[in-house]
Each structure stands twice: as C-alpha cells, then as structure tokens.
C-alpha cells in the first residue's frame, strides 16, 4: 500500500524564482524512506529553496517501484537516485568501476526516461564496502524549461556524501533528528545557503 507523506519544506513560499508566475510553481522531490535518502532529499530541498526561492515539497515512498511510478506520472520532478538501483531497474550489468556505472546509467536514464543525472553526491554510505555505486541528484528534463538554474544549484552538492561530517549527519537522522533541520544546519555552517 502506497504511503505518501507530504512534507512542505519550511514555509510554503508562493513564488517560483524562475517563472515568478502570479501563482508560483512547486517542485516535488520524491524519496525513499531510508535515512540516507531522506538526508540527501532534504539537502536538495533546502538548497533549492534557499538559493532560488522556489517552493519545494517532499514526498516519501515505501519502495523504488512506487517512486519510479510517480516519476513516470510526472508527480515527482527530482529524486536522489542510486546508480545500483538504476542499474537494476534497467536490467543492465554493472561496469568495472563507479565512473563507468555512472556513465552507463546516466545515458540509460536520459534515453529511456528523459531523466537527467547531475554530478553525484558521492559514494553510497548505505553500502560502504561497495564502492561501485553512488547516489546522484536526478531531474526530470521537462522541469528544466521552467527551472534552468536547477542543475547549477544541485551540482553544488556534488561530493557532499564524501564530506567527513556526512556520517555524523546520517547518524543524527537515524537517531530521530529531523532531516530538514540537519540538512539546513549543515549547509548553513558551510555557507552554502
């Protein structure tokens, strides 16, 4: 049974920075329920909101199939994707290293689903012994028309999962701290927002 928890980030700001439409547009980030996915999602939500003024909502899904179904229905615009999960979804075989897996998956997602994979967050901490897969901010290409600065903003999170403080942040979320607050405090301290 699909369980969707909708969290409105911080405030429901009613403007879209890019369109500045009279009634603002909203970006939806879809995420799995794991602590790592929650943290990556909130890092994206916070940086997009703070640096573009765009309203961001977060929807959580129980499994990857449900999340991907929402992507196909255009109910979700952005997700933190893992190259291992992506590889499995497309029925492809793993390459020899993380870079080659990323390249294969990036091309596959663009060709098959019109999803753009941006610069990776870094190695997945969920599988610390498996350096083959990385987490990647992934955007539905159709939203880039109205939000052209999105890649620029999200690429600022490149390598963030390799930050020496990241495991501590993750432990904090696993201990029950609110992921949005953890993400916000971290980005603020780094003067990224």
């Amino acid at each position, binding site marked *: 049974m699909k369980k969707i928890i909708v969290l409105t980030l911080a*405030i*429901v*700001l*009613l*403007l879209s*920075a890019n369109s*500045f*439409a*009279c*009634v603002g547009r909203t970006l939806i980030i879809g995420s799995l329920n794991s602590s790592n996915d929650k943290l990556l999602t909130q890092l994206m939500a916070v940086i997009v909101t*703070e*640096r*573009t*003024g765009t309203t961001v909502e977060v929807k959580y899904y129980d499994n990857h199939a449900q999340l991907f179904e929402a992507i196909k229905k255009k109910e979700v615009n952005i997700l933190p994707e893992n190259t291992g999960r992506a590889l499995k979804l497309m029925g492809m075989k793993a390459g020899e290293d993380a870079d080659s897996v990323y390249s294969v998956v990036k091309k596959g997602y663009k060709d098959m689903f019109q999803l753009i994979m941006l610069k990776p967050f870094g190695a997945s901490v969920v599988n610390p012994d498996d350096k083959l897969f990385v987490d990647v901010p992934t955007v539905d290409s159709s939203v880039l028309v109205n939000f052209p*600065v999105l890649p*620029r*903003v999200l690429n*600022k999170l490149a390598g963030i999962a390799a930050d020496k403080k990241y495991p501590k942040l993750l432990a904090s979320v696993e201990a029950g701290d609110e992921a949005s607050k953890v993400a916000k405090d971290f980005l603020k301290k780094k*003067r*990224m*927002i």
Partner: protein
Amino acid sequence: MKLHLNIKCSWIRLFFLSTVIFFTISAFQAVLATELFKQTLIKDATWNGTIILNGDVYVPSGVTLTISPGTTIKFRKIDKNSEQNLFSTTTPYYHLAELIIRGKLLARGTADKQIVFTSAESIPSPADWGAVNFLGSQESEMEYVKISYAYNGIHAHGSTVKVSNSEFSHNGVGISFKKETKDVAAPWFAETSNLMISYSKFFKNKGGIAFRSSQASIHHNDIRDNSFFAIWPKEDCEALVTYNEITDNKKGIYLYQARGVQLEQNNIYGNSSYDIAVGEAQDYPFNAANNWFGTTDMEKIREMIFDKHSDPDLVEIVIEPFLREAVDIGAGQ
C-alpha cells in the same frame, strides 16, 4: 467571603454580557452584509459597509470603483470548480476570488476608518483569496487599507498604483508586481508597472514586496517578521528603496538578476538568515552602500550578507561605505 463572591459574580455577568453583545453584533453585521457573486461592474460604483465576495468582481476599463472609509470587504474561499471565476484560473488570474481592476480603484480610508480586505473564512489562512489584481489600471490609489489572508495582497501588471499608510499581513506576498514577457493577448501583461509604496507595514506575510522588471518607489515602510523575504527585486528595474525598516525577516533583501535598484538609507538588520542575499542566478554586482546594518563591525555585517564572500560563484554585494548609525525613517505612520 461574601464580597469575594460578589466580585466573582460581577465578572461572570460581565463576561456573559460581552459574549451576548459580541454575537449580537456579529449576527447584525452578517445580516447587513452585501453578498456579491461573480460580476462585471458596468458603471462607476461606490462600496460601503460590509461586502462579501463569493467570486471575482471585475472593474473594466473606464469604470471607477470607489470604496468608502470603514468598508470591510471579505472574500470567500472558492476553487476553480466553483464557476465563480470570471476569466482564466491561471496567470495573471487566480483560481481564488479576486477583485480585478482594469479601470480604476480608489480605496481611500482614514486613520480612524481603515478599509479592510480580508478572508470571509471563520478560520482564515493565507491564500484564502487571490488579490486586488491591477491589470493595466492607471492612477489607482489605496491608502489606509488593511489587506490580509490573500495569495498576493496587491498584484499588478502594467499598472500605476499608489499605496500608502496601509498594512499587509498573513498574505503569501504583501505586494507583487511585474512585467511579463509572454503575450496573453493583453497589452498590459507585458508592460511595466509603477508602484509607489510608502508609510506602510508588512508583517507576518511569507514575503513583503516582490517586483520584476518594474518601476518602484518604496520608502518609509516597516517590513518585519515575514517568513521568507522583506523585499525581492528581480531583473531589470527602475526602483528607489529608501528609508525603510527591514528587520526580523528571514532574508531582508533577496536578489534575483536584479539591476537598477537604488537601495540606500535603510535600516537592514536583525534578519534571521541574511540581511541581503543573492539568489543563484544573480549575475550583476549589487550596490548596497549607505545603509545601516545594525552594527559598525565589518565582520558582523559580512556574516549577514550572502554573496561571493560565501560562494565564489556568486557576485559581490557592495556594502561600503555603510552608515554608522540608524536612519530615522518614521515608518508606517
């Protein structure tokens, strides 16, 4: 003991009496209120008393709507399925009830008898109604008005509006005006707006004043406690922002490709995130010299500015020379 009981009884009587009076007055007002459904005014009109709008009201070109001091206008919360929208439910219109001014609006209250625009809901919330929506309106005026619980309190395209001595609270954005590039088969959509906003208060909105590619004169306003920004200029403007108190907002001034904004002689301090912050796409350096930032400590001032000193990819906000003492702004009087 007896005296104590007497005093207690008196308070109970007073409370009971007050409650009865309150509900009687409320019921009386409800009976006297004028209920309007979607409509176009075909000739000049004057509103007074309590007006309840159940849908869009359109003031076409050549028609003037005058609102008398002390008038209260309440908007019911509707949706796009209500069939109470006169036009489209997308930009530049709202799916919510709105007052659309293509002609002229003269809403001149007084210090004692303000004109109130608010929600008709028993538990009001921001965006219960759309906006006082100026579309190609010239020489409209609003003074001593209180606007609350709108999506945008005032919204404008290609219009000239003077706003003074007014209050904006609990709206999405207090005042939002812009020039769009898209053509929606209406010349005013892509024309510059010119808003003069003075001696007004903006508080507990999500944003105070936002404008894009427009002319603006924003002075002697008190803009505080707005949950995202106080003032958000965007793109190519011709704006003078001066003698404003900008404090206790999340971001004081938020910049998005902003040019042509003269920002000086303001008190910009104590905002929770930043006093001035550039958005991702700000490609032009911004001059914010000659403002008071709440301190003369350069390091502390810099801490509250988000620009290339925080992220080398961003442009610089020039803050020197900064004022060494607060400006006497006489705001919101």
